[in-house]
């Protein structure tokens, strides 16, 4: 594969992603792996994979983002996820608004101006509630496959109320609900509701400017988007490859660093 002009790598707490973009900022290659404890070794291996897949042996210019961004010694620059998600969302969707990113370790709300500039942001990085981990942990307890989580939750007719917003306590609450004979589907729906309400509270700290966009691995879960719409009354727009948005934005920042402007979606 030829024509890749810039690269982005997002070393997240759950997954590590690499994206290559061609002129104009179109995504043309991407790799995704679960993050490993030996991040530096994984980064070297993934960059080798990217080089082999693209034929670009240098994999440069490269911009790194995510919690492990400083571990990417091969990077020309490190940039935070806030900037990268904003760039990625604007290139993918072509408008500003309010971007909600639900990652494995944190969740963030970014208010974007009409030109995709970051006007304000809020992060929940203190508590697992409102993050992908919240769902991941609890789906294990309920024996439901992570990929089917949203689908199962949406199929529920009833909804259990989970009073706890803490991941650890929610797990105990689930055990107790199961012991009382409550079904898996209502519990899952209640769980999604708890997560979404947490996100909505954060959205209100920066103020909701429509349209509402959703990114991060959790955006692949249809129940989150649906409940977010129900709670806010706004339509939720999910960009293509929502989980890759950070790496995509990083690649766009790299593209700008060599004097090229990303085009429109």
């Amino acid at each position: 594969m030829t024509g890749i002009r810039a690269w982005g790598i997002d070393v997240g707490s759950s997954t590590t992603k690499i994206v290559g973009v061609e002129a104009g900022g179109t995504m043309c290659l991407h790799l995704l792996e679960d993050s490993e404890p030996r991040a530096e070794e994984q980064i070297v291996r993934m960059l080798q994979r990217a080089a082999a897949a693209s034929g670009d042996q240098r994999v440069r210019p490269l911009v790194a983002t995510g919690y492990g961004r400083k571990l990417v010694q091969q990077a020309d620059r490190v940039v935070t996820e806030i900037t990268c998600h904003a760039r990625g969302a604007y290139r993918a969707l072509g408008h500003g608004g309010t971007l909600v990113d639900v990652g494995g370790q944190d969740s963030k709300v970014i208010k974007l101006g009409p030109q995709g500039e970051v006007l304000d942001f809020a992060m929940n990085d203190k508590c697992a509630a409102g993050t992908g981990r919240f769902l991941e942990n609890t789906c294990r307890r309920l024996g439901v496959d992570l990929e089917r989580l949203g689908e199962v939750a949406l199929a529920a007719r009833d909804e259990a109320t989970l009073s706890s917003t803490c991941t650890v306590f929610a797990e105990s609450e689930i055990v107790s609900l199961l012991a009382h004979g409550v079904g898996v589907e209502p519990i899952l729906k209640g769980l999604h509701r708890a997560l979404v309400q947490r996100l909505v509270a954060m959205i209100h700290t920066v103020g909701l400017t429509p349209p509402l966009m959703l990114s991060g691995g959790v955006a692949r879960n249809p129940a989150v988007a649906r409940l977010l719409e129900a709670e806010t009354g706004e339509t939720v727009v999910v960009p293509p490859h929502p989980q890759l948005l950070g790496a995509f934005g990083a690649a766009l920042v790299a593209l700008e660093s060599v004097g090229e402007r990303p085009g429109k979606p």
Partner: protein
Amino acid sequence: MKALGDLRDYAVARVVGPAALRVQRWGNQWRAWRGSGWESAYLAPPLGVAVRGKEMVARHWLAGRYANRDRKVAWITSAAPVELLHALGFFIVYPENHGAICGAARVAVDLSCEAENAGYSRDLCSYARTDLGSLFSGRTPVGRLPMPDLLFACTNICQTVLFWYRVLAHQLRVPLVLIDTPFVYFETAPEHAVAYVQRQIETSVPVLEKIAGRSLGMAKLKETGTLSREAAHLWMEIMQRNAHQPAPISVVDQFTLMAPVVEMRGEPATVDFYAAMLREVDGRIAEGVGAVKDERHRLLWDNLPIWYRLKDVAEMLGAGGAALVASTYTNAWGELADLIDPEEPFESMARTYLYPILNRGTGHKLKTMRRMIDQYSLDGVLLHSDRSCKPYSIGQLDQRDRLARETGVPALLLEADHNDSRCYSEAQVANRVAAFIETLER
């Protein structure tokens, strides 16, 4: 034997200790002059006068080790009418400052654990836990704390001090004088509130005189008030010099250089110290030297410092070209200078100690921040949401929104604690600050 012990303590406190500190200062000055010992790609070296400040503080705590031998000792809250106690010859200890020293020395968590193990909740102020832990364990980075003959607390900074000092009074079995300062809800305090505080200050005098073993001399009180006002004025002037670009003195430096105006106001040496600092700051302005080498962004800091990460925060910001130019916290020790009237000591003390920022509404703080944004040409605000200091942190979410909406200046909330490093997450703070600086650079 006792006489020998007394002689040894006297020699250490008055001769050997001060001489050693002087030699240490000369060494520091020599290193500063040679430009060695300072390694930062982003920050200018601290002011030369800082070594003198360090010596003043060290001397104060050195004298404190032996103060119980020949002086009456008062433990006092940071914004209490200290002028009275100075005029009566008390040796003064500020437990909050001691707490800050423990925080900066990174021993606060160990000491807090002592208090927590004794049953004090981790939700209490970390200054209180640090100091109570120090009291229970006898450990302190200042060598030895003199035990108080008097506890003197003023409620104008928080309600915690009321309970903290009651615990101290109970533990140490010493008298507690409490000055209750009603909250100022509007622009000015009602006259009955001023009269109420004045009456409390006046009625405390006989108690203080009895403990001090001497009468309050009005001439001495006026002199102390004059010195206190001069020091506060100079401190205010120094902070106001940061209207210059680049800002000559970072707020991070102010956090440590404010120690004398907090714990030694009313003393002639404090006035001299700030006069020298002002000269040096003016020199920096004349030479175009900024506290951050490449100042591109000018920020406001709200709330107490994160004592155990001062340098790290400064470096983190400096790397992004961000200078902390103004702070509501350091400002609090200068903004009331005009209220001190040595000719009307009791009434002016009542007014001065009614108006600290924490004894006023959140609207007042918002107004102060708005004014600072204009006065210092600021382009961002960092609000330290301090888990320990609830009165300072309450309302910050609304203040953040209103600052962004009404002034267009972005503001960031940073969650931490002034002394308890268990409430501080390095990676997350660094991430938020880096993202904030990227936002400023758009």
